[in-house]
């Protein structure tokens, strides 16, 4: 059993035992015996079901923003990327500060097929990850190590960026043609927490429920902009898409724009609001 | 425009539009304050000062604008540009008017100056560099001024300040080829003016960064034509100083004349092609480029600045026969020497020597092109000489024009300007004037007998290159520093102070 797992279990047992939290959201091994899945540990016995390995792909902070979880004191196991979600959500007052964040030093998460096949390749986001130690956590499990050489976070975007606007438009048209508007991307994203999503509003009806290319474009474009400056790059949206639309590219592109224009990375500080909500006198946008 | 002749002004004339477009300046925003005229060294000698020439352009008075003397006598000192409250580059407008006059076949008001420029360019075309003796001689003949500067000739020859033969230059043929291609490009019908709009001037003044990067220990070295002939002592002392400080200077192989003021005021493309060729040579060496001559520096920087315009850059690449990438940083020599290194290497401090540091205009102007030191009150030379132990004076003539290129066609006028500079230095008790420019040195050094009144009874004012003074302080032997080249002998003063 790895040190990470021992560490997590010990911490959670302690938290539950002294009733610091009511329950902890973590990972357990799923029914296929290979891939991890989210798990809610309410008792110290259940704490022993917790695991942490390179299949722990889910961003568990999603569970913290659900309405029925308000009022409870919760613990959550977070990878570094998930921890960035925490900071964004804290800045947006989505849960009280007494949440206990159990940060885990992350080895990188792999892509695994549902059949449990051998694909040990790390996920695209993990290949360029430059933050293996979760920032700003209440408890840290694992040895913080120095980061490796800085990798280009946005290398994946290069082929698309090299294309003309017409070519890119054609590319995304093709992608969105497949979209079923299942909203899995939205459902899995912690930063998508609106009680009534604009996509499903009837008064006014911004988008409409019909699955059509125009509606699909509008849904993704608006969602993308709602996430600008808030997306922390976990790429879970892309992973859960049943028709494999590369949503990670879209959101990562906006992350890049925000970084270039405002020198801002979402999730670094919990006392900071995203650039699109802040004004600084020194700020001068090149609007040419 | 004859005096008192009634003129018919026109608003928004095609001529005004042409001048505005070619110069890239908003000529209509001039509100005629007169700051340019007030600062112009030539204003007292010409009929129309710079303000009035701009007014003529504003009113569409083409004959007055293209036929006046000022556009030919303009020294390019940029004092007007630096001071204009509407941020108009007045010197650029003067240059544009001169180019338009040439292009439209208007008879130059000052014929001999036009001839001088042609001769200089012709010399560069043949040999790649300026052959001063021939240019001066032919100018005297063809310009109808046979005795101009003839009095200086014996003394200049005796001191080896004028090469009897043109300098050997490996790149000579290549330079000729550049001329050929430039002529071809200029012969094409013009669909739009080359160059386009100038970059906008920066707002409130801020002094530019000055100290050089300590990590740079090697420079590509562009001496410029004068340093091979009339200013050899500048070249020698510069090399000695750099060698002593442990910074390598590698001379560009086959470099050509930068074109000085002649090229860019008679042909815009040639004016950029000639410096650009040298930048390309530096790029091949992979080193930043330094030059001791402010005129060369100004041309190199102006070219770097102007060639951010891709259309012009394309034409220059075509003229050079190779793509011009505009990536080599250019550092003026005052910025390539660090005061701390001088202070650490001083062996014989220049204690007791009171120096007036004279910068001339081109190292620091205009601000956004030179991006070096302060336009009105520069300090770099003062710091270097203070590091060498000298006392430098605080004076108001650091950047007052010395008369520059007019010393050949109008020596008397140039002498007036330099007389004021020297008189100011003398009044403030300076022992000598330190310069960083071959033309300034020549102007200040060579005609001091005519300025006896200005210089008062204390006699002549020695004019030395700052590198010669630094070399003295670094312990280099005076005999190697060519003090005998000066027409106004500095040795008595140096000996009296114990430096030679």
């Amino acid at each position, binding site marked *: 059993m790895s040190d990470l797992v021992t560490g997590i279990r010990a911490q959670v047992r302690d938290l539950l035992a002294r009733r610091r939290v009511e329950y902890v959201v973590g990972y357990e091994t799923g029914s296929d015996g290979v891939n991890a899945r989210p798990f809610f540990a309410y008792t110290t016995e259940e704490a022993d079901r917790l695991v942490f390995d390179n299949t722990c792909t889910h961003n568990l902070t999603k569970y913290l923003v659900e*309405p029925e979880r*308000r*009022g409870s004191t919760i613990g959550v196991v977070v990878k570094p990327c998930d921890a960035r979600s925490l900071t964004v959500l804290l800045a*947006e*007052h*989505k849960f009280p500060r007494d949440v206990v964040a159990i940060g885990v030093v992350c080895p990188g998460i792999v892509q695994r097929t549902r059949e449990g096949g051998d694909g040990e390749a790390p996920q695209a986001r993990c290949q360029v990850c430059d933050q293996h130690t979760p920032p700003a956590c209440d408890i840290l499990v694992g040895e913080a190590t120095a980061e490796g050489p800085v990798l280009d976070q946005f290398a994946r975007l290069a082929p698309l960026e090299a294309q003309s606007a017409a070519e890119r438009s054609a590319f995304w048209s093709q992608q969105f043609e497949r979209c079923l508007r299942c909203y899995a991307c939205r459902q899995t994203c912690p930063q998508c*927490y*609106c*009680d*009534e999503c*604009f996509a499903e*509003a009837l*008064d*006014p*009806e*911004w988008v409409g429920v019909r699955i059509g290319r125009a509606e699909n474009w509008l849904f993704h474009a608006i969602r993308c902009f*709602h996430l600008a400056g808030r997306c922390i790059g976990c790429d879970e949206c892309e992973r859960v898409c049943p028709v494999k639309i590369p949503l990670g590219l879209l959101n990562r592109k906006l992350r890049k724009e925000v970084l270039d224009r405002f020198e801002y990375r979402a999730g670094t500080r919990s006392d900071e*609001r995203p650039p*699109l*909500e*802040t*004004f600084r*006198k020194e700020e001068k946008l090149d609007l040419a | 425009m004859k005096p008192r002749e009634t003129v018919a002004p026109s608003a928004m004339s095609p001529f005004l539009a042409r001048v505005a477009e070619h110069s890239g300046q908003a000529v209509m925003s001039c*509100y*005629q*304050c*007169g*700051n*340019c*005229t*007030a*600062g*112009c060294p030539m*204003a*007292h000698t010409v009929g129309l*000062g710079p*303000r*009035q020439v701009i007014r003529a352009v504003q009113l569409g008075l083409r004959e007055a604008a293209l036929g006046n003397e000022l556009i030919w006598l303009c020294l390019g000192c940029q*004092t007007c540009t630096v*001071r*204009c*409250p*509407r*941020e108009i580059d007045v010197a650029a407008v003067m240059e544009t008017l001169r180019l338009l006059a040439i292009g439209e076949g208007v008879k130059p008001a000052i014929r001999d100056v036009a001839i001088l420029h042609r001769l200089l360019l012709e010399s560069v075309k043949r040999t790649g560099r300026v052959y001063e003796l021939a240019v001066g001689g032919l100018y005297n003949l063809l310009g109808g001024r046979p005795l101009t500067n003839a009095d200086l000739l014996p003394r200049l020859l005796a001191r080896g300040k004028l090469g009897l033969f043109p300098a050997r230059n490996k790149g000579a043929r290549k330079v000729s080829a550049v001329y050929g291609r430039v002529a071809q490009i200029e012969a094409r019908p013009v669909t739009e003016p080359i160059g386009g709009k100038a970059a906008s*001037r920066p*707002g*409130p*003044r801020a002094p530019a960064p000055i100290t050089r990067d300590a990590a740079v220990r090697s420079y590509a070295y562009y001496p410029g034509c004068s340093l091979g002939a009339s200013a050899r002592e500048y070249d020698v002392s510069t090399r000695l100083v750099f060698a002593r400080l442990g910074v390598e200077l590698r001379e560009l192989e086959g470099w050509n004349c930068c074109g000085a003021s002649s090229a860019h005021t008679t042909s815009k493309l040639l004016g950029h092609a000639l410096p650009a060729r040298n930048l390309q040579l530096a790029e091949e060496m992979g080193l930043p480029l330094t030059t001791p001559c402010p005129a060369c520096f100004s041309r190199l920087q102006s070219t770097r600045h102007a060639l951010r315009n891709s259309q012009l850059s394309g034409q220059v690449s075509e003229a050079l026969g190779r793509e011009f990438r505009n990536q080599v940083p250019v550092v003026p020599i005052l910025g390539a020497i660090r005061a701390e290194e001088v202070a650490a290497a001083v062996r014989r401090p220049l204690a007791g020597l009171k120096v007036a540091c004279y910068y001339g205009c081109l190292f620091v102007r205009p601000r956004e092109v030179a991006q070096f030191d*302060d*336009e*009105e*009150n520069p300090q770099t030379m003062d710091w270097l000489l203070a590091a060498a132990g000298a006392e430098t004076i*605080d*004076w*108001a*003539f650091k950047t007052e024009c010395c008369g520059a290129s007019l010393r050949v066609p109008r020596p008397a006028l140039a002498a007036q300007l330099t007389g004021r500079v020297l008189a*100011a230095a003398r*009044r403030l008790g300076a022992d000598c004037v330190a310069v960083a420019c071959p033309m300034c040195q020549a102007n200040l050094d060579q005609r001091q007998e005519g300025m006896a009144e200005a210089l008062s009874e204390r006699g002549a004012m020695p004019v030395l290159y700052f590198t010669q003074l630094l070399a003295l302080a670094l312990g280099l032997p005076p005999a190697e520093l060519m003090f005998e080249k000066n027409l106004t002998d500095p040795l008595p003063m140096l000996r009296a102070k114990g430096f030679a």
Partner: protein
Amino acid sequence: MARVGVFICHCGSNIAGVVDCAAVASAARRMPGVVHAEENNYACSEVGQAAIRTAIKEHRLNRVVVASCSPRMHEPTFRRTVAMAGLNRYLMEMANIREHVSWVHGDDKPAATGKAIDSVRMAVAKVIRDERLTPGKVGITKRALVIGGGIAGIQAALDIANAGHEVILVEREPTIGGRMAQLDKTFPTLDCSACILTPRMVEVGQHPKIRLATTAQVEKVSGFVGNFEVTIRHRAKRVDHSVCTGCGTCWQKCPEKVPSEFDSGLGKRTCIYIPFPQAVPNKPVIDWANCRYQRYLAASGAEKKPPQCRICEKLCPAGAIRFQDEDSVVTEQVGAIVVSTGFQAFDHSAYPEYGGGRYKDVISCLQLERLLCASGPTGGEVVRPSDGKHPKTVVFVSCVGSRDDRVGRPYCSKVCCMYMAKQTILLKEHDPEVQAYVFYIDIRAGGKDFEEFVRRSQEEYGALWLRGRVAKVYEEDGKLIVRGEDSLVGRPVEVAADLVVLATGIEPSAGADALARTLGVSYNDYGFIVEAHPKLRPLESNTDGIFLAGTVSGPRDIPETVAQGSGAAAKVIGLLNQDELVTDPMVSRVDPLRCSGCLSCREVCPFDAIGSELLRDGRTAAKVNESSCKGCGLCVVTCRSGAMNLRGFTDQQLLAEVVAITR
């Protein structure tokens, strides 16, 4: 069921000359919800308005669209019209078919008519969804705050106080009086500045309704018109003014002298000081940063400890010195604020060609003013700072820091031509042998008696006015050589001067931009606070309840400043005389069911009008303060959840407009 009436105005030929109004009316009749459409020659006129009211009654209209000019022209007019006919005033929409159609598409009448019809269609779609809105009411605190105690603030404070309202006058310096107190005489009357100013200053100091707070600064402002909460820091004076008699013993004996700000750096003052003899309050304060006793207390380590001093404390007969005093921070409630923080002179060290501040005998106009002034550092003797000799040739250089793009000041400072003329006259009065030269670019003498005043300078007092900017000033043999041009004769000109006076321009006082940010008002690139409308609302900022007076909003002279002080006071009195304020109902509203509590709206609101509230189900939701909200809509576009909506411009209305012209 909506019953919409559409009224198409001809506006004479302004609209009808381009747009086919009959066709518009005909198209309108076929639009859903429209039960009546008619044309009108001048809808805004008596006749036109009456026609609208008649139609409302006759056709039982419950919504009105007026297709005419811009709402900025006549929205209030037509709102009144429908209100008079018994409709809620917010059930009226305007379609702009003049500024947006007939005035810009005169070259294509059919297209213009088509666009007019589309505009009307949009307005109809919008008006159907208009709700009845009721303006709110809010109480008013009957107290005013005036920030800045120069002549503008003094005038405003006196006028407000004399109208019976309480005023708090906050001034950063130890005395009120501002720039005017530094002047010797004022143009064009040549009144002694202190003589006309000080009686007002005393009046302020003694007025029962004015609370004077000097060495005080506003730190924080929150709230909204009629209900501001202001936090003021009263910096410690370290002298108890309730006990101090102003005898002057302390400042006569204080050993520490520093350059005097009041004398513009020309003279010195002591550390415990009053800035000038007629200061109000006429009691000293301690400049703690420079005080020897403070340095003694701050010094650590044994060597080189400064003397303890405390001479003032030892000598004060009233025992008024209080070294232990600390700043106090106080919160006040006020209903209106007047900002009158004044100006400072441009720092001429930005001009190295004029010496960059290095030449002692190149001085600023304010410094000359102090030399001229009998209560100045030289007792009214105009002498050269370098050697104390009387100058015989004085050269004035205009536009230093004005009309100059290079130093980032392209504007004209308005008063310099006049004060240069004044100073040439005063110089000659002091010394008949003085010859003044003025290098100018243009002479700006646009006020009453101003032109005549400038002529006096030239004709009676012999000042030589040379038209041309000065390029350079440098020292030579004890003189200052001034090089300029006389462009009228067309020659460069040189004058050897004994004294050079730079007409330094006007810029806002230091810290004015920070104060503007504290107050939440806009300011321009130079730091001048921006008026609500430069022509028609020069005394109001863009925040209701915050008024402007004096040079805080731009260069101006004393008569204008005083007029503005009184004008701002009138606005304040008008506000405070009411018992309650009516608030505009076209404000934002939160739908708590949709709000996700992220409070992004609060972050972006420029008017601090959004807070949060705890709902009964434990969620936090945003809450709009309807009195502060100005209806800008920034929160609406920021809200991702679609919870924020702007009454009168709801999302539903805007979408309906889009649908109306796209389907």
